[in-house]
Each structure stands twice: as C-alpha cells, then as structure tokens.
C-alpha cells in the first residue's frame, strides 16, 4: 500500500533514540516563535486603554492621512553658494593629489571631491613609488567622516579652546622642567615634522623623542642600519625577480609597509613563456602564501632554520618535505642568480641581516633608495614602556599612537594614569586619549598639510581637501605654537622648508599639484633624532625569543595584520569591518587560526549551521602569564601544525561604536613587539562563536570555475588542451557552447558603438580587496552588519571568492573527480572533496555581475526592471524593481544583492549611512537604494556615461584606455582591466583575444561580458 510508505526527512530519524527526533516531534518550529516580540507582554497589553475599535480607527485614519499627505510634494530648498569658489562647479568632481601617512599605511593618493567634500580615494598615477593604495587607504575617506572623532581639544575630559589649551600645555611643560618627558610618535616620515620636533626638543631639553610603530619592523630596520647606516627598510622590485623565496614574509599583505603587489604581479603574468617562481615558507596562510607556486607550512622556529639552510646552512632537523622544498628553492635561487630574491619577516636581526646579505648583489633589492615608512625602535619603545611603568618617566606626549591599547604590558594603563603629564594627540577618543589629562584633537590627513618621504628621494605632499570638520589642529601647528613660532602657519613653514631643502628650483605649486616630487636632496629624518646609542645592537633582546623558542614547548603564535584593519587605526570604519578577510572570508572578527590537526587534537571545531553560518569554538590563549580570553577559533587550511595565528588591531573599545567593537585585542600577546611568540598554550573555553563568514563552500570539487594550468603545459600544449571551450551535443555532434547553433536566443549585433568588457587576470589578482572597497565607495554599497552578513545578506557588489584545493593541488582535484566512478565512490569521494587539504593550493576569483549578453535574470523579471543595453551592460532600474527576487534565483553567478532592509537612515543599521556626517561620503551620482529592491554591479555605468559625455563635449572620439570602472581603477596589479572591445587598439580587445581568456561557467551559455584569464602556475623547477 502506498500510504504505508515512510519518507525520511533526515538520517537522524533512523535512530529511534535520537533526542533530536524526539524534540522535533514535540516542537513544530525549531526556533521558538518570538510571539512576545510582536505581541508585547501581557502586562502592557492590559495596561493599554486602546480598544480594538479605537485601534482600527487610528489605523484607518493614519492610512488615509498618510495617503493624502503623499499627494503633496514637499517643498525643497536649494541653497547656492554666496560666493562660489572658482574651482567648484556643482556636479563636477575635482581631484586633488595628497598623501596618506597614518603611521601604518603610507600612500600617494588622488582624492575625488564633489562640491568640496572628499568622496573617494584613487591611485595617483604620477607617483611611481607611491606605496600601495590598498583597501584601508581606499576606506580612509570614510574614517574622516567618523562621528566618534575628537571634536575639540580637551583638558580633563572637558572641551576647551585652543588658546586655553596652549596656555595649559605651556604651564604644564614648565612644571615638568627637569623631569623626563617622552614624545612618543608614530612614524611620520616627514622631514619638516622631524625638523619641528627637533626645535621642540631643543626648547624643552627634558623631552625625548621616540618613534613607535604599533606593528614593528624594528629588527629589519636594525639590520639595515647596521649594514647601510640609515634607519630604513630595503625596497624590492619583484617585477625583476625570477625566483622569489619568502620565509614568513607576507609581502603581498602588510610586510614592511606593503606595496609590493604591483611589481610582483608584473612578474607573475606569463610573458614569452616566462613567469616568476614563488616559494613561500610560512606558518599562517597569508596572501603571499595563497599566491605562491610552492607553499610549505613551517613554524617560525623552523623558518629560522629554513632561512639558514637557504643561505648556506644545513637543512638537517627539518621535516623531510620541508627539507626537500628547501633544497629545491635553494637550487632555484642559485640558478636565478641576481634575479633571485630571499625575504623574511622573522623578528630577528640576524635573520634580517642574512637576507640583506643574500640579496645584496642582486637586482631585486634596492638599498640606495630605501623606504622610510617605518622607523620605530623596539628597544627605545621598551624603555619608554618600562620607564612609565617604573615611574622614571613623568610625562608622555603621544602622537598618532595609542599605547594604552597597544603596549603589551598589563600595568601600563594604570601607570599611564599616574603620570604627571599625559598629553595625547588623537583623532579619536582612543584608549590613551580617554585617560590622558590633555587631548589635542588632530585632523584627518585629508584635512592636513604635510610632507612625507616615502622613499629616500621621493617626497610626497599632503594637502587638505576639505576644511577641518571639527575644531582640530594638527600636531605640527601645535609645535609651531609651542616653540614660540605662533605667528607662522604650518603651511608657510612647510612651503619654506620644501622650497629651501627639497624643491630647489622646481615649483611648489607643481609639487602640490602632482602630490609627489623626486629630489636628490638629503634631509634629516626622524631616525637621526633617535638615540644613536641604540645602534650598538645587542641582538640578544630582539631575537632571543626565536633562538630559545624550541625548548619552550607550547605552540608558536604568529601575530599578523589583516587586510581589513591593519594595525587597528581605522577600527571604526564599517567598510573595513565588513570587508571579508581574503583568506578566511570572515568579516567583523579576528580569531585564532589553527591547523586542522591541532584543532582535532584539542577538540576544537568549526561547523556550519542550517542558515549557512559558520560556528566555532572558543579558546583562552595563554602565554607567560598573559591570558587573552574567549578567542574564537577558525580552522585554517594551510596553517603550520604547532603554530597559531592571531590578528592585531581588533578588540578596541574606546572611541569605537558598539557595532565596531569586534574581535579580541591581541596586543597583550605582542611581547617585546615581536610578531612571533613561543610557548603559547590554548585552552578550550565554553561557548560557540558565530562567525560572519561569506563563503560556505571552500572547494571547487574539481570543477573549472577557476581554470588553471601549469606553465609547462601553457608553453607546450595547444590551447584546446588547457583552455577548452565546453561542448554540447547537437544532433549527436559535439559543438562548442559558444556556437550560435547551441543558443536558444538570437544574438544581437554588438559590433556598433561601444561594447564594454571586463577582464580579470587570475594570475595577477592577489586577492587584496582594494577593488571591493573602491566599489563600496563608488556605488554607495551599504554596510549591513555582522548578523546580516552571517545570514548571507552581505551587499558586496564585487566579491573575491577564494578556493582551496581539496588535494594538494587543484590539478589532483580534477584527477580525483575524473576517476570517480560508481555510486559508492561518488558518495564518499565527493564528500571528501568538500574538505580543504591540510596545505591546499589557493586561488582567488573576483566575481561581480557578469553582464551576460544572454542574461538569465533579464528573462525572468516580471516587470522588466533589468534589461540589456547596447553597450553590453546589464541595466538595473531600481525604481522599477518590485522585489520578486526571481532574477537572483535565476542568476548562475549569485551576484545579485537584495535590500532586505532600508540600510540608510535606519537606526537598526547604525553605520555611516545613518548619520549626516557619514552620509557625506556618498557618491551623488549613484542612487542610494531603498528596501525591497535588487541591486548589483552596474559596471560603473555612471563612469562610462561620464567618459562618453566628456568625449562628446570635447567633440572627440573616446581615448584609448579612458574607460574605467571603480574596480579596474583601484587594481594595483592590473588584474582587472576594463574597456571597449570594439575599439581595436584597446587593451581589452587584446585581452579578449588572449588564449588564456575564458568565461565563468561558460557551459551555461550566458555569454558574459566579463571574462577571466586562466591562472597559470609555475611548476618549473631549477
């Protein structure tokens, strides 16, 4: 009988004793229905005097009133300038070159302003050594519109005027006469500032200047200073490298200030059958490791040995696979000769010196024009920290640094409060500023003047792009006042200094216009002001940790900085908080990364729950009496066994909006300001952490979502072998899906006018995420918050998918899939393929709307809200959309984003779009979408429209390379290219003809206008 048939809903039902089944039987709804939420509690209900009839009356009346009121248009006021500035035309953007230098990120940028307010950061093409305009730099414009900034100078927590503040400081400085005061600053790399600081310390002899980098590069600086005499960092041009061997250095991330991805990517695109070979020995899975050809997970202590082995020592004692890799790398390096480069991030002066010696004769490292963007000296900083704690230092002036938050000494905060004098120059009321006696409100870099020497001989100008939003005064201005040069403005001082020392005969205005000027002028730097005694390096303090590590037992902790927050300067920036980590794809969090083996051993787990959210265990991280409690655990494929990773910059509480108080503070573990800590133990804690991870599935299961091949095959085999167009069977004959015969639709003629295409080179994409933030800024993409991201309701128009291989390589994934046969094998082996390997290969793939010429979304929209333009863009008319979400369901790429809520002017989403200040960053050329409509990448149609209009107005054809999207303009590595394929000389036209070109999910036959370039891995050996 058919009705006897029993349908099993889940495997659990087979188990009679299962508690889950029992509970489900009793409970129809798994989650309790929140009746109280919408009914209110009984008490309130009864206390109310409103009867049902009254209620209906009110509802009726208010509905009628609302609809009547809606018929009247509001009166909108429009207020023009009284005296319009010459350069401002309402509706036309102005661009200004300036420089970001917040002590962690240094970059030459171009600021787009509209009606006098900065709305977007772009790359300054004039700057050839401009540092990297990474995701944080792109997001920095929003940090200026932070409503939590310090808005006035404060004494004892009360707002005062600047003149009172000056008096108070002068008085305090006189009182402090004879007592030791330390001026603890970030790295300014600003010659004029260091001159000013010298004038200040000359006037107050009891003041000592110490530079503190929250994330230290001190050992590398020490090694460089020992060898070359200047306190600076060697610069590398990876485009010249044939073999790159990195030992723990995430040089695509923030290693030594970052900014290397452009050069690196240049060497990674196969040209004339050649590309660079990249070996990476590291503990955490970093961006550099993810991009490497060969990645070997090794703990930091082993890394030291690897480094020694690479530079001539023995590899004995290393695990076999590591030793094998080391010997291969070594051979390859030797073969490359001067075109091989070896780098490391080990916090060890000797290790750094080894590397400098190794690279000395090569072509990749540049020591004549070193980078000046980090100057901190760990020993000096330690003296300050200990001096404050012991009480020998009586006063502390901090500028742009937050020692109360970031000093790894548990007694420092208390000792800081007991100082005779504490003065903090701060932009936000951070942990130091809230307890400081005096707080000097400083402006954002977009409101300041300044000069920055990014590299020796490259001087950048910082110029304000907006009048200061608050009652702030920059540090340099204060120093001028306090050194008795009160009449001089810093602008004049700077101009005079630059003209006198740097510019020579070249024009100041031109320098300000370009934002950067090359000069051979020698200027004194901050480094020269630090105590030269510290040059007598005693290496024992700085590398003691590593040498004695192995005996220590426990795990090795590698502290790193994440793409989103970096050192934590911009923790209050919702764009950065919501930017998924390129590797883990988790946003709004930091966490301990643990290898699968270690996690299993300790009983730590990660699992996905029904709504797709990732859950994880908590641990207490303990080290030398320091405990960081309740740190979530993320099992990270590729993490070296015996090592753990934890990101700095999180866990800030002061001056941070509640939603942005995410993660845990890892700085207490940053003992001796060393990125590597040993003897760390993890203790499982109770509770389950809910991650907001945007990627549920981590492997490709052997599919060709990302096409990959090896350099050898690429060079030798036919394109059909490694980049075949999928075929379908028609009349029992295989025809390519691109053939018109395989198409349901009649194609349109797209040869006339512009036809936009976007090319993404998977070889050049490092996954850095700059494009994601640029897209946010350009297109007013809302921030939805951690809870919504967890529900997969993130609004990123552009995501960077990250895939792990489930075998050692993607190639073996493919093989495994091909070999699956039969039911049993497919069940078990496909299951296995869902799990990432312990040391997987990694591939990144930016995915945005593919602007299909045969778009599945367009055909299912019942109201024709999404339609195709002749120029290849898939248009989305928000005002027409009724929110059926059919389009999103029918999109094979899952790039459509639905506005589940109103994200602007809604207290439930209290991010920048919910306050007047934050809304100033919105791009006036793009609509802010409302609730209930679908949105997606528009291929920056506002930018293509503008380019076309500019050409029309000038009466000329569009220039080659003039078309840009926000992502293509932001891409440092040139991975994203945009243009008109009908323009035959354009770059995109060539890229479309490139044999590496393929379309995502080509078999679906959507004919996208976005195409990818097959990833080629260099498997060649020496």
């Amino acid at each position, binding site marked *: 009988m058919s009705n006897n048939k029993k349908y099993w809903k889940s495997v659990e039902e087979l188990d009679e004793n299962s508690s889950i089944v029992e509970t489900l039987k009793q409970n129809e709804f798994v989650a309790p229905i929140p009746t109280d939420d919408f009914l209110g509690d009984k008490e309130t209900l009864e206390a109310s005097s409103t009867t049902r009839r009254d209620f209906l009356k009110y509802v009726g009346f208010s509905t009628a009133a609302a609809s009547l009121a809606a018929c009247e248009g509001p009166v909108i006021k429009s207020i023009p300038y009284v005296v319009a500035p010459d350069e401002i*035309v309402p509706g036309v953007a102005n661009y200004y070159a300036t420089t970001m230098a917040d002590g962690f990120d240094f970059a030459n940028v171009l600021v787009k302003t509209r009606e006098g307010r900065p709305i977007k950061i772009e790359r300054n093409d004039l700057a050839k050594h401009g540092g990297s305009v990474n995701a944080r730099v792109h997001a920095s414009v929003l940090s200026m519109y932070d409503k939590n900034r310090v808005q006035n100078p404060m004494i004892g927590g009360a707002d005062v005027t600047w003149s009172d503040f000056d008096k108070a400081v002068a008085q305090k400085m006189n009182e402090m006469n004879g007592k030791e005061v330390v001026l603890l600053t970030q790295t300014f790399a600003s010659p004029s500032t260091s001159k000013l600081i010298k004038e200040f310390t000359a006037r107050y002899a009891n003041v000592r200047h110490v530079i503190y980098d929250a994330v230290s590069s001190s050992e590398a600086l020490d090694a460089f200073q020992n060898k070359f005499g200047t306190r600076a960092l060697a610069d590398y041009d990876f485009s010249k490298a044939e073999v790159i061997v990195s030992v723990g250095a995430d040089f695509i991330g923030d290693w030594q200030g970052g900014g290397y991805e452009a050069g690196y990517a240049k060497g990674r695109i196969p040209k004339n059958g050649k590309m660079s070979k990249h070996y990476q020995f590291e503990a955490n899975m970093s961006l550099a490791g993810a991009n490497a050809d060969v990645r070997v997970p090794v703990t930091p202590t082993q890394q030291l040995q690897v480094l020694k082995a690479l530079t001539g020592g023995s590899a004995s004692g290393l695990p076999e696979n590591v030793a094998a890799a080391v010997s291969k790398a070594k051979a390859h390096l030797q073969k490359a000769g001067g075109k091989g480069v070896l780098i490391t991030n080990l916090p060890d002066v000797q290790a750094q010196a080894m590397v400098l010696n190794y690279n000395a004769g090569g072509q990749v490292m540049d020591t004549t024009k070193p980078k000046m963007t980090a100057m901190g000296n760990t020993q000096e900083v330690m003296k300050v920290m200990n001096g404050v704690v012991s009480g020998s230092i009586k006063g502390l002036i901090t500028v742009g640094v937050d020692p109360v938050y970031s000093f790894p000494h548990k007694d420092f905060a208390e000792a800081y409060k007991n100082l005779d004098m504490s003065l903090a120059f701060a932009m936000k009321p951070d942990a130091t500023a809230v307890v400081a006696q005096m707080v000097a409100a400083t402006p954002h870099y977009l409101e300041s003047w300044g000069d920055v020497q990014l590299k020796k001989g490259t001087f950048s100008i910082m110029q304000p792009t907006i009048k200061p939003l608050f009652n702030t005064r920059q540090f340099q201005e204060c120093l001028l006042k306090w050194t008795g040069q009160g009449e001089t403005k810093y602008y004049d001082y700077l101009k005079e200094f630059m003209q006198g020392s740097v510019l020579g005969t070249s024009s100041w205005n031109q320098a300000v216009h370009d934002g950067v000027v090359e000069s051979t002028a020698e200027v004194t730097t901050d480094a020269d002001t630090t105590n030269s005694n510290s040059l007598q390096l005693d290496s024992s303090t700085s590398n003691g940790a590593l040498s004695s590590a192995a005996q220590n037992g426990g795990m090795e902790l590698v502290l790193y900085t994440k793409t989103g927050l970096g050192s934590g300067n911009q923790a209050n920036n919702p764009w950065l908080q919501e930017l998924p980590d390129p590797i883990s794809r988790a946003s709004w969090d930091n966490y301990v990364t643990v290898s699968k083996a270690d996690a299993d051993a300790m009983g730590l787990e990660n699992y996905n729950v029904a709504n797709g959210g990732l859950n994880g265990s908590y641990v207490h991280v303990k080290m030398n009496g320091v405990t960081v409690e309740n740190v979530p655990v993320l099992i990270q494929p590729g993490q070296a066994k015996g090592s753990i990773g934890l990101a700095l910059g999180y866990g800030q509480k002061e001056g941070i909006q509640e939603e942005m108080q995410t993660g845990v503070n890892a700085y207490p573990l940053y003992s001796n300001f060393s990125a590597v800590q040993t003897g760390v133990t993890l203790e499982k804690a109770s509770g389950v952490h809910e991650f907001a991870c945007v990627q549920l599935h981590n492997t490709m299961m052997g599919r060709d979502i990302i096409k990959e091949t090896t350099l050898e095959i690429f060079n030798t085999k036919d394109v059909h072998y490694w980049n075949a167009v999928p075929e379908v069977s028609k009349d029992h004959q295989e025809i390519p899906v691109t053939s018109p015969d395989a198409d349901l639709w009649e194609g349109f003629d797209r040869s*006339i006018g512009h036809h936009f295409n976007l090319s993404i080179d998977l070889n050049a994409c490092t996954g850095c995420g700059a494009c994601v933030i640029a897209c946010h800024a350009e297109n007013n993409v809302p921030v939805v918050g951690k809870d919504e991201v967890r529900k997969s309701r993130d609004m990123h128009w552009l995501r960077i998918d990250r895939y792990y291989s489930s075998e050692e390589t993607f190639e073996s994934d493919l093989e495994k899939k091909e070999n699956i046969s039969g039911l049993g094998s497919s069940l078990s082996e496909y299951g296995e393929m869902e799990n990432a390997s312990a040391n997987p290969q990694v591939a990144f793939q930016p995915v945005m709307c593919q602007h299909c010429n045969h778009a599945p979304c367009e055909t299912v929209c019942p109201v024709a809200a999404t339609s195709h333009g002749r120029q290849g863009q898939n248009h*989305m008319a928000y005002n027409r959309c009724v929110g059926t979400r059919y389009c999103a369901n029918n999109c094979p790429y899952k790039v459509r984003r639905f506005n589940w809520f109103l994200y602007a002017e809604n207290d439930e989403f209290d991010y920048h779009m919910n306050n007047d200040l934050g809304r100033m960053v919105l791009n006036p050329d793009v609509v802010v979408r409302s609730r209930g409509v679908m949105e997606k990448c528009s291929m920056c149609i506002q930018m293509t429209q503008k380019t076309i209009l500019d050409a*029309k107005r000038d009466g000329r054809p569009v220039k080659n390379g003039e078309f840009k999207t926000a992502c293509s303009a932001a891409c440092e590595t040139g991975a994203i290219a945009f243009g008109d394929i009908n323009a035959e000389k354009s770059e995109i036209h060539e890229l479309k003809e490139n044999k590496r070109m393929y379309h995502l999910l080509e078999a679906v036959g959507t004919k996208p206008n976005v195409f990818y370039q097959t990833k080629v891995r260099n498997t060649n050996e020496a």
Partner: protein
Amino acid sequence: MQKVKFTNLPSIVSLLLLAVLLTFSTQMLAQADSTAVVAEQAAPETPAAEGVGDVEAGEALFKSNCAACHKLYKKSTGPALFQVSQKYDREWLYKWIKNSQELIASGDAQAIKIFEENNKSVMTAFPGLSNTDIDNILAYTDTEKATPPPSTEVAGGAASSSGGVSNNIILGALALVFLLLIIMLVLVNNTLKKIAAANGVVYEEKQKRAPLWKVFVENQFLVLVTAIFLLLSAGYFMYGYFMQVGVDQGYAPVQPIHYSHRIHAGDNQIDCKYCHSSARKSKTSGIPSLNVCMNCHKNISEVSDDTYAMGQEEYGVDYNKEIQKLYKAVGWDAANQQYTGETEPVKWVRIHNLPDFAYFNHSQHVTVAGIECQKCHGPVEEMEIMEQFSPLTMGWCINCHRETNVNVAGNEYYKEIHEQLSKKYGVDQLTAAQMGGLECGKCHY
C-alpha cells in the same frame, strides 16, 4: 404683451448709455492726468540746462561712457557726479577725465585724494572725449534732479483702478439688465395667464407621467449602461488624478527674493548660460551663486523708473527692495561700495525636482545636443515668476528622445557610430532613441 415690453425699453437704453458713459469718462480723466504729469516732468528740465554744454548730447555721452560707474546723486563705483563741475576746476576736470592715472602719477594732490577716497579703483581714461564733449557731460551732470513726480504713482494707481471699476460697472449693468429682463418675462407671463383666465381659456390637464428617475430605475439596461459609464469615467478621472500626483507642472513657488526672469532674460537679453554657466559642463544647471548677481548689480542698485512702475503695477513688487535683499544676502554695503563679509545664503525654493533615481545631465543637452533652454523650461524670458513649464515625466523625456535627431554635426565622437548606425537603420538622421537614448540604464542607476 408687446405693449408692456415697449414701455420698458427706454429705461433699459438709458441704463446702458449711462454705463458706457461712466466707463469712458473715467478713462478720459485718467488720460488727462497722465499727460499733465508728463508735462510736469518735462517742464523743469529745460530751464535747468545752464552753463556751456548741450544737455541732451551730454546725457547721451554720460549714459554711454560714465553710467557704468557713476550715478548723478549716489555714490557708485565712482563718486556721485551731480554738480561736479562746481566742485573742481574745469581745466583740472578735463585732465582728470581724459587720463586720471596720469594726473595721479604726476602727483596732483587732489587727484590722489580722490583716488584714495574711492578705494583706489582706477577710472578708465577717455582720451577720445573732446573738451566740448566733457562740457556737454558736465552740463548734463549739473542739471537739477527732476523732482520725483509724486503724482505718478497715485495717478497710475487711479488709472488702473478706474479701469477695473469701469469693467465692474459694465458687468453690473449687464447683470441688472438681465435681471430686469427676467422680471419682465415673469411679469408678462403672469399677465398673459391672467388674460387667458379672463378670456376663459381652459388648459388641458397634462397626463401624469411617472417621474423620470423612476423610469430610469426601472430600465435596467439604462442603469447598467450608466453604471458602466460612471465607472469608466470615474476610472478615467482617477487615473488622471493619480498621474498628476507629483507632476508639478506650473509650480511657481514664492521665492525669498522676487527675481524676474522677464527683466533679466527678456528685457535685458542676458544669455541663460551667463548665470547658469554650469549647465554647459555639469549635470546641474546650478542656481547662480550671489557673486554672479553682483557682477552687474554692483552697479545696478535701482531699476529704471519704468521698470519700477511696472513692477508696482503689475506684480505689486518693489524691485529696488528686492535688490536690497540681494545686497543684504551677499553682504554688500552699497553706501561704502564694499563687502562687509556678513553673508546669509538665500534659501531658494527648488522648482524642478527630478527624483534621485533619474539621472539628467544638462551639459549633454545644452552643450552636446545644442538644445535651447526654452525647449524644456518654456518661455522663461516672459516669466515674471519662474515656473515649471514641462511635466518632467518619463513619458515626456522618452517622447522627445524619440522625436529629436542627434546633433552630430561637427562632433568627432559621433562620426563612426552615426555612420554605422544610420546604415543599419536605413535613415539619414538618427534619433536619440536610436542612439540608445531609451535604455533604462542610461538614466536610472
């Protein structure tokens, strides 16, 4: 009956005559008033012409050369010039007017003093003026100010109001006539009935019919048809009503400063894009900032008498006060001819409110397409108060895009695409729609 009618006729005729008479008499009176005023105005001018010059020639010269910076009775960029010839030596004046800078450079104390008193603004040299010309000008500047005709306003007011009164009288008279006619008809009818009764005429009783509404209700077909008709027409009007919600055609709000486009764009022929310059290169046409107003109004603090009178009469606006509002907003001290720095922005009421989701670019239409502003904004040069001329609905946009040819002449951008597309569509001239001007994403993103 006829008899009755005829008896009333003379009185009606007389009434009509009276009305006509009244109307014309007041108008004639008004005309007499205004001619008298003209005479009064003209009268004092001739005797005041004394000295050596020709006042009329002087006036012409003054207006073409001096009036931009000088006024007779008020300080402008330069000092007031009334009776200037009596303040300074005539020979010195010749020198000054022909080249004041030379005079200053020569160290003439008086010249330097004047130069410094007037914010060191350099007076243009007029080497082309002969001494006679200067005499003429000086003759004009010495002319006594015509006493402001106090009766103008009153008389003008009276004239206009009398015009209004006469119209009312005519209407009243007509109404009276009609009333009389109706009364007469009733009277006649009554009289006839009485006569008929007296003559013993008996009317036939009319057959009692069912009342109309009952017939209507009983005829179901008619009810159905009416119902359908009513529903349809209700639907039609509802649709019409809803379609005009948010379409503010004819919206002409009261602005903080009564700015007359009629005077600026109409009478003075100022190009729209002189003030709305950003329409050429930006997506917005821009409300001009006040410094643009001051380009001209630094020198124009008062309107001409005719314009003033017109403003008073037709629009009830004191234009001079409106200019003062501008001065206040921009912080211009007219007495000392300098900016005070105290500004208060003007909060104009925005008239053309395109929703946020619609992208419209002025420069595309103005610069590239070369469309006249009037095409969308209507006869602005005739508008005393600016109003929304076009509906600004999507249908209106689309229609124009369908009908308008793309202006490709001399534009290199269009060269290739126009050639190819016109071949494809088989037309000589492409419309904006054929160029892709109807695609959703062109205006909505």
